[in-house]
């Protein structure tokens, strides 16, 4: 419950500083975040029309704890998850995404497809926030198991599919500070017996821009579920990173996060790494834009 109060408090803060809106002369606020993703969470940013984004993201193994340390060179010799994907700006407000992730949960070899639609833009019609909706579906392409009872037994082909819907509201307070709140619903067609198919979660993300090129980013996501507690081995999603924007169409990000997965259908339901036990990892994302 404590988490709920924190989230409600953050919403209240967002409203309280709403008067500090950037002067945009009636135009939409630009560059709330530097990338379409913050660390783990999607941001409200969409690609401009006809731009193609090629991205590679990587999550290494545990930096410390039982699986980290010197034997794995602090996790750098393990790959918890890898994403190779493309995003394309269909219009300035609609972005399509297609990517493959290795997968860190029980279902692996994932093909992830998403549509992001920027519904509202901060600054237009005195709108205090920008709002984007993301619909994502993820399909596991891993080989069907012969062992009944495991998730990838895939009794029905529908069991390969997972879904995620996220609503993101973000505000750029000034040139240095941006924040985002996220409400999301994640659904898996097949889960372990004691688990739940649908997970509702709330998230918060922020960016503090230090220089034109460098920003500090954080994000977190907390499932609103009595089952997903630390007693049951689940932990909130946490991420802290540095974002570099070169100005040449490149974006580079280094981060530390406790979750292993890169897809929402992976890192939200399977957030089972405890930072307190050293179960956090280095990650990076490289993004390159192309004109199409």
């Amino acid at each position, binding site marked *: 419950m404590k988490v709920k109060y924190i989230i409600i408090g953050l919403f209240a803060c967002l409203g309280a500083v709403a008067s500090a809106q950037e002067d945009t002369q009636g135009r939409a606020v630009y560059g709330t975040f530097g990338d379409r993703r913050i660390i783990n969470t999607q941001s409200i940013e969409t690609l*401009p029309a006809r731009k193609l984004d090629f991205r590679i993201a990587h999550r290494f193994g545990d930096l410390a704890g039982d699986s980290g340390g010197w034997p794995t060179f602090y996790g750098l010799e393990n790959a918890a998850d890898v994403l190779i994907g493309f995003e394309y700006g269909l219009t300035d407000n609609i972005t399509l995404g297609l990517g493959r992730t290795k997968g860190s949960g029980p279902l692996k070899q994932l093909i992830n497809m998403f549509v992001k639609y920027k519904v509202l833009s901060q600054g237009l019609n005195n709108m205090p926030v920008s709002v984007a909706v993301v619909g994502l579906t993820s399909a596991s392409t891993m080989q069907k198991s012969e062992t009944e009872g495991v998730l990838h037994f895939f009794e029905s082909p529908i069991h390969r599919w997972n879904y995620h819907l996220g609503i993101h509201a973000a505000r750029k307070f000034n040139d240095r500070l941006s924040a985002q709140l996220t409400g999301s619903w994640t659904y898996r067609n097949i889960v372990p017996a004691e688990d739940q198919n649908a997970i509702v979660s709330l998230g918060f993300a922020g960016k503090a821009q230090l*220089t034109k090129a460098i920003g500090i980013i954080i994000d977190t996501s907390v499932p609103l579920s009595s089952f997903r507690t630390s007693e049951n081995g689940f932990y909130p999603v946490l991420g802290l990173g540095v974002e570099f924007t070169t*100005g040449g169409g490149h974006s580079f990000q280094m981060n530390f996060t406790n979750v292993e997965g890169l897809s929402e259908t992976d890192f939200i339901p399977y957030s089972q790494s405890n930072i307190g036990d050293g179960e956090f990892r280095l990650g990076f994302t490289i993004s390159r*834009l192309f004109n199409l």
Partner: protein
Amino acid sequence: MISRISIIIISIVALTIGLSFDIERAYDTNGDIRLYKALASIGYRSVDHLPDTSVKGLSAAVGEDIVKYGISKREGENKSKRQSKHFVCTSCHNIEREDPDLSVSDPEARLAYTLDKGIPLLPATTLYGAVNRTSFYNGDYEKKYGDLVKPARDDIREAIQLCAVECAQGRKLHDWEVESVLAYLWTLDLKLNDLMMTDTEKQTVATALDGEGKEIDAIQILESKYLKYSPAHFVDPMERGKNKFNITGNAQNGQKVYENSCFHCHYRNKYSYFNLDNSRLTFSFLENKADKYSRYSIYEVIRHGTFSKHGKASYMPRFPKEKMSDQQIEDLRAYINLMAE
């Protein structure tokens, strides 16, 4: 000798028999006398690159679409492939008149004029009046494009193709597209009212056009009132720190350069991935980089530009001294310093 009335009659006849194109009109839609027709009427053919009306699909409207949006569509066919993924003609060229006096190329006067008209200050010459010129890719553009400029120097069609392939980093235009662009450019040709003439000169020209004066005098007057080519001199960046030209920047003018020139491509990443805005972070970045020998230094990037390379075709064109003066660059520096404080 052809009087104004004769020009109109000839135009009507030509239109009626279907042999003419817009160029045959002696007057534009505002009633201004077209320079080309005026010169022709007193026996001087100033240029000979009229559109080839026998080309199927020729259309000034299609030419306008190519120039403004990089797309074209010939009647009965599908839309053609976008000319360039990176730029359109208007990324670097205005399509309006941009100089108060067409007989000189003065970036200071141009900045004031473009601000007044609400158009940007750009590194390339306006397409307004392009068809009245006889030479293209002049001066130091040979240093940048080498032998590629040779066929384009005296041939507007080759100049259009060079612009499409090298400047816009796009595909070569089809013949009908080139002719359509040319047809559109002919809708942007100079009119007599564009030329700065004294009352006496106007009288001399008017008398000649009416068939009662000396044509040679009128031709000399008209030909001296606009540039037949666009001069371009590439110069080195100013030596930073030493300010060898002993120029003091004016921040107020610098703001005009920043917002009317830099913003054209960089504001909200319009043509560039390097975004410029009015944030202090941006000005601090530009101030810190100004004295470096890198593409992020305003001195370096304005005078040298950046170059297209494999995998990153879009680039920033350089500003010849006729397009941005040393004074304007130093004004820009003063504005950046002020805003970074």
